[in-house]
């Protein structure tokens, strides 16, 4: 034992000396990451900012390829049972945490149990609810964690049982909620394990420093199984929420990659830095919700139709935002996997604008509103330049049909608090898909769940409710045939959209700026580009 420790110490010292000698030529990636990550704990993370840091220092059973497709990660291979409910993963040989402890199937079992443990209060636990008994454990119905459908057969073999066949499950495993955590450390330190002085990882990079408000810094993990092919030695994930300032720093050569840029500068970027700005379709929808609770004005489908049909969506992306986002008429983003070929497209979308306005005016009259009795609606959005522009544009578009809009903006916390409380009439919302499957956006329109007398509407802020829609969604969740399942989901989409359950505005795009010095960056619909695939030339 002592001997091996000594060898390890020598090896570490040697490695360190090597690192020091190459420090002068170390390649550093300066990545603009947006806001401050709220946490480094994969089970508590909830956004892109955390994902970029966490996904570089921990690796799940599967990981993302340069184009963000699911590929082998800590698991080398896997078998799937005939009925698609049992997955058996075989871990790689020699994988270890950065403190030298081997990564075992037990770490994964522990991690999943921790994820679903109500005490962990993981924001995104629901993403792994396809796993057997996950939901019941997370809600506290089952208290014996051994009933969870994640089992270690031996140190190298992990078996995951699902409730039902789930076509996107392998992809869901690339999500940080499915990452392993170092059991030996978490059991010793509890939540303190993610403090920079304690943290260990099994990914290509290791977090070394976190200066809130400024940056997180990670260094290459020499013990990573693919370390030989990892080009970048050090990554700074910079915090800077002022996008104009971020672009200035990019132009000054201080950042290599921007993960967002001000839309107003898109034309300028194309003219002055051709090829560096990447605007790519992003799996997500920007939409407005309408409060359809009983007694609310917008429970009247005629007014909802008048609102949705009089929005000139073509003008929003190219003119008002300036980045050319494509107009949205349906609910499932184009490019979503496991879906039907021809997307939902309503007939009214092709009628001339004037006709649509006339029709909307008639609808308003039918609903009892007109010049003598105009309708005033309050429109809420969260404080942000782009949201503001769209809100102002919508108000102007609805003026001709006799609707007066009062704009009301508030910071994110207040805005979503109001949406969830049903304290709004029309409100801005958006959804980026967690995994590439139509059910991820369609679930937003499912009727709430009755929980002991109070309805939990989750993310269905408008409280749209249609029994037929719900039935189709349930039916789709157990349908094994992907084609049939896609059709069921498409039928559900049609029902909701024909009833104007919400107002889709545009399909999201991701906006990155990548320096010509960086190679290995591939545009992809998830906008995930792990540092291990990138390289930088001076």
């Amino acid at each position, binding site marked *: 034992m002592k001997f091996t420790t000594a060898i390890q110490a020598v090896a570490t010292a040697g490695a360190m000396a090597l690192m020091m000698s190459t420090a002068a030529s170390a390649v550093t990636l300066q990545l603009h990451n947006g806001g401050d990550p709220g946490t480094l704990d994969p089970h508590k993370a909830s956004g892109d900012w955390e994902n970029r840091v966490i996904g570089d220092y921990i690796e799940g059973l599967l990981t993302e390829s340069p184009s963000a497709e699911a590929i082998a990660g800590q698991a080398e291979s896997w078998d799937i049972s005939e009925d698609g409910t049992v997955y058996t993963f075989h871990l790689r040989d020699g994988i270890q945490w950065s403190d030298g402890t081997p990564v075992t199937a037990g770490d994964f079992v522990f991690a999943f149990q921790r994820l679903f443990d109500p005490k962990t209060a993981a924001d995104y636990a629901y993403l792994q609810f396809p796993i057997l008994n996950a939901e019941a454990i997370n809600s506290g119905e089952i208290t014996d964690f051994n009933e969870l459908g994640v089992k270690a057969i031996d140190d190298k073999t992990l078996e995951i049982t699902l409730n039902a066949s789930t076509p996107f499950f392998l992809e869901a495993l690339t999500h940080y909620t499915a990452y392993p955590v170092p059991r030996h450390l978490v059991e010793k330190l509890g939540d303190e394990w993610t403090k920079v002085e304690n943290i260990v990882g099994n990914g290509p990079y290791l977090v070394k420093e976190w200066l809130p408000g400024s940056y997180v810094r990670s260094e290459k993990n020499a013990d990573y199984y693919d370390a030989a092919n990892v080009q970048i030695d050090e990554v700074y994930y910079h915090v800077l929420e002022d996008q104009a300032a971020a672009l200035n720093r990019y132009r000054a050569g201080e950042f290599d990659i921007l993960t967002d840029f*001000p839309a107003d500068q898109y034309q*300028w970027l194309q003219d002055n830095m051709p090829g560096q700005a990447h605007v790519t379709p992003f799996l997500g929808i920007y939409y407005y919700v309408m409060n359809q609770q009983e007694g609310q004005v917008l429970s009247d489908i005629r007014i909802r139709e008048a609102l949705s049909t009089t929005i000139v969506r073509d003008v929003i992306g190219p003119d008002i935002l300036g980045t050319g986002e494509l107009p949205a008429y349906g609910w499932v983003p184009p490019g979503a996997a496991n879906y039907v070929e021809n997307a939902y497209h309503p007939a009214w979308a092709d009628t001339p604008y004037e006709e649509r306005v006339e029709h909307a005016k008639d609808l308003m009259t039918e609903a009892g509103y007109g010049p003598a009795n105009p309708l005033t609606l309050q429109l809420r959005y969260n404080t942000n330049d782009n949201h503001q522009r769209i809100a102002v544009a919508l108000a*102007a578009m609805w003026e001709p049909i006799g609707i007066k809009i009062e704009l009301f*903006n508030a910071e994110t916390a207040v805005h979503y608090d109001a949406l969830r409380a049903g304290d709004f009439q029309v409100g801005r919302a958006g959804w980026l898909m967690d995994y590439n499957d139509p059910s991820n956006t369609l679930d937003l329109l499912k009727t709430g769940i009755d929980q002991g007398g109070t309805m939990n509407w989750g993310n269905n802020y408008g409280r749209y409710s249609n029994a037929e829609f719900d039935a189709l969604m349930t039916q789709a969740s157990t349908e094994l045939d992907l084609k049939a399942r896609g059709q069921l989901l498409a039928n559900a989409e049609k029902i909701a959209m024909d009833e104007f359950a919400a107002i889709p505005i545009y399909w999201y795009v991701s906006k990155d700026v990548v320096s010509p010095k960086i190679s290995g960056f591939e545009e992809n619909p998830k906008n995930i580009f792990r540092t291990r695939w990138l390289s930088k030339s001076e």
Partner: protein
Amino acid sequence: MPGLTGKDQVLTTYANKLASLDAPKGRSLTQDALRRLARNKAAVVSIAILVLIIVTAIVGPYLVPWGYAQVDWSNIRKPPNFEVGHYLGTDQNGRDMLARVLQGTQMSLIVALVATLVSVTIGVVYGAVAGYFGGRVDAIMMRFVDIMYALPYILFVIILVVMFGRNPVLLFIGIGAIEWLTMARIVRGQTLSIKEKEFVEAARAGGVKPFTIIMRHIVPNLTGPVVIYATLTIPEIIIAESFLSYLGLGVQEPQTSLGTLISAGAPVAEVMPWLLLAPALVLVTMLFCLTYIGDGLRDALDPKDR
């Protein structure tokens, strides 16, 4: 925020001078003071420009071809174009910048006036009460003012906005309500010396109520400090408002203010300079004028030169 323009010191110096003189002082803007002000070229020019800006901001919106919330769908984010009447160009929503600058100037002025009025009112009443009643009341009230000076105001304003939402009136009543400290101190000093005067003693002996005495004999003697205070406070509020706008806590759309326009124009200074230049120019000009007017008034009302 006390300290923003150093107005505390300016006013305190001024008040000290007032206190060092005997006899009726700080009388309103006498002809004498006006004559001296008229000799100050910078101040006169500043007044002229400021009046011009104010009149334009009030009358202008009726004369320009576009409304400040009106969208011109065929001219989105376009530079100045005289043919279609967008003399200062349009913003990203196709709204006329001239109309918006006029509306923004109006809003900034209103907001500054309301806040100043609130702080003057509170300051005068508080200071007069403390000074008039003196003794323990005075000691406690002034201790409170001392400590209030130690509060980080801008932070409180931010907390207030977070609390009340983006309501300009409420917000600037809030700012006014924490801006009054300097005013209170000076009014108290004035009151302390005036209340010893014979005419006040006589009034008191005649059974006149304290409130009436304060209003009739003390407040009219405060014109000088109040005028100076106001010219120094208005720029402070305008700057504070622009800072809040930068944090996204400004007025509610479609209304706007100079601060909101500038914080929207700053990031696009290169690609759409017309969004930044006009509001920034108006703001800086206005603040320059107010500064010169403040200086001029201080000199003109300087009790030492009488």
